[in-house]
């Protein structure tokens, strides 16, 4: 059978734990338990200031997750539209989607954040948190658009032809046949984007949003313990992304089971 084998490569994001690596010492385990051990060691041996820093951060963690989840939801919607636009035969829709992706990819995320934040500020008064989410979602939507496009293109043309020959139109074919299959190809890179986005939300600390990094900076500027604070912040981010990448790889394994039977 002819089948297109496509691997979507997204350089960004945490490395997914290698499912082939079944030894006791995997890169993931070393990183994860190493991080936990260092955190425990610091907190127990020097509770002042490390425990104090750790206690100061939970509010920021909640905000970081809020921004990440809301942004990824927005990015998924924009990404689906952009991805469909990129493969659309409608010239206007196609051009609009391509231009969106081209423009967004050409501007640094931090500059976009500032720009959207202040541009929005001119038009409507929205809370800082909402402005940050819109900016992050708008930017990541472009990257997600390329992921969707690649995922849709990875599905064999025969699937489309079979669907059309039964009487489905193009959009029904997309909905019932292509997207449900493309989802499995799309999920890993989407997961990677999620983790990359979570890390990039540290940028919103500049927009007066009290995420993990912002909380840390507040603590540091009061205590002048810059080194200790940023050590703890790095460890917290690392722990979160390690847990997420593990969850992601487990989910992938479960999704791919029917392909291997």
């Amino acid at each position: 059978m002819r089948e297109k084998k496509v691997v979507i490569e997204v350089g960004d994001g945490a490395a997914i734990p290698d499912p082939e690596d079944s030894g006791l010492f995997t890169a993931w385990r070393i990183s994860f338990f190493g991080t936990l051990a260092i955190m425990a060691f610091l907190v127990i041996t020097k509770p002042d200031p490390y425990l104090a820093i750790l206690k100061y951060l939970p509010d920021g963690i909640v905000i970081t997750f809020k921004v990440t989840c809301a942004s990824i939801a927005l990015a998924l919607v924009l990404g689906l539209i952009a991805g469909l636009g990129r493969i659309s035969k409608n010239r206007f829709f196609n051009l609009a989607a391509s231009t969106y992706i081209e423009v967004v990819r050409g501007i640094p995320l931090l500059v976009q954040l500032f720009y959207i934040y202040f541009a929005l500020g001119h038009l409507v008064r929205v809370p800082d948190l909402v402005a940050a989410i819109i900016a992050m979602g708008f930017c990541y939507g472009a990257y997600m658009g390329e992921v969707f496009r690649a995922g849709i293109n990875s599905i064999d043309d025969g699937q489309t032809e079979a669907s059309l020959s039964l009487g489905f139109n193009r959009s029904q074919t997309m909905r019932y046949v292509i997207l449900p299959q493309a989802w499995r190809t799309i999920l890993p890179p989407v997961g990677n984007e999620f983790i990359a986005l979570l890390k990039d939300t540290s940028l919103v600390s500049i927009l007066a949003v009290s995420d993990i990094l912002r909380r840390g900076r507040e603590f540091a500027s009061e205590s002048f313990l810059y080194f200790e604070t940023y050590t703890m912040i790095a460890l917290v981010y690392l722990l979160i992304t390690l847990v997420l990448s593990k969850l992601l790889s487990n989910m992938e394994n479960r999704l791919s089971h029917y392909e291997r039977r």
Partner: protein
Amino acid sequence: MNAANPIISIQNVNKFFGSFQALADVSLTVEAGQKVVVLGPSGSGKSTLLRTINQLEEVSSGSIVVDGRDLCDPQNDINRIREEVGMVFQSFNLFRHKTVLDNLTLAPIKLKKEPKLQAEKRAMELLDKVGLVDKAASYPVQLSGGQQQRVAIARALAMNPKIMLFDEPTSALDPEMIGEVLEVMVTLAREGMTMVVVTHEMGFAREVADKVVFMDEGRIIEIAAPDHFFDAPENDRTKKFLEQIL
């Protein structure tokens, strides 16, 4: 033969892929209930011709009328015409994310708005017909090629088409699985289905075809009854082709 009212009427069709001419002034009519087998060397345009009948390929010029409806007339909804024209592909193209049963019921439920139970009942009857009732809950990857192709035939039949198109249905199969698929096709032919079949199975052509169409380089070279075609071919190119394969 009643030539007055064909169910498929192809008139002077040309098809270009860029500057390559895949079909050159092709005309062919198929009566209701007729079985037409299209033969020819690879690259002769036979698959392209088949794919124009349900507009998977648009023609560059000429006209195709299926069941009284002109495919080139934008007034006619091509999707409604396709519902009446089932197609079976070389590479099966079963929906990989659906079970066998769901492959059969998807189109009837979504397009014909059949109730789920009714669609499933009909699907089980069709699976019984192709001998695969016990595979209803399987996914396509779990089936052999021959089984997948029989499911694909059942899926096309689930829409109750008036015409069935077969595009080299056995070419991707291991030799020991070809028989089981041909058997289903012969049964279907006996029941009176209108069929247009592109194939290299000469035995099938001889046994089932009402007429054999021989194509080469985008043109129809010869149209004849199978006995006449195989035993007394008129055209030199036909003779050469038959010598090579028989």
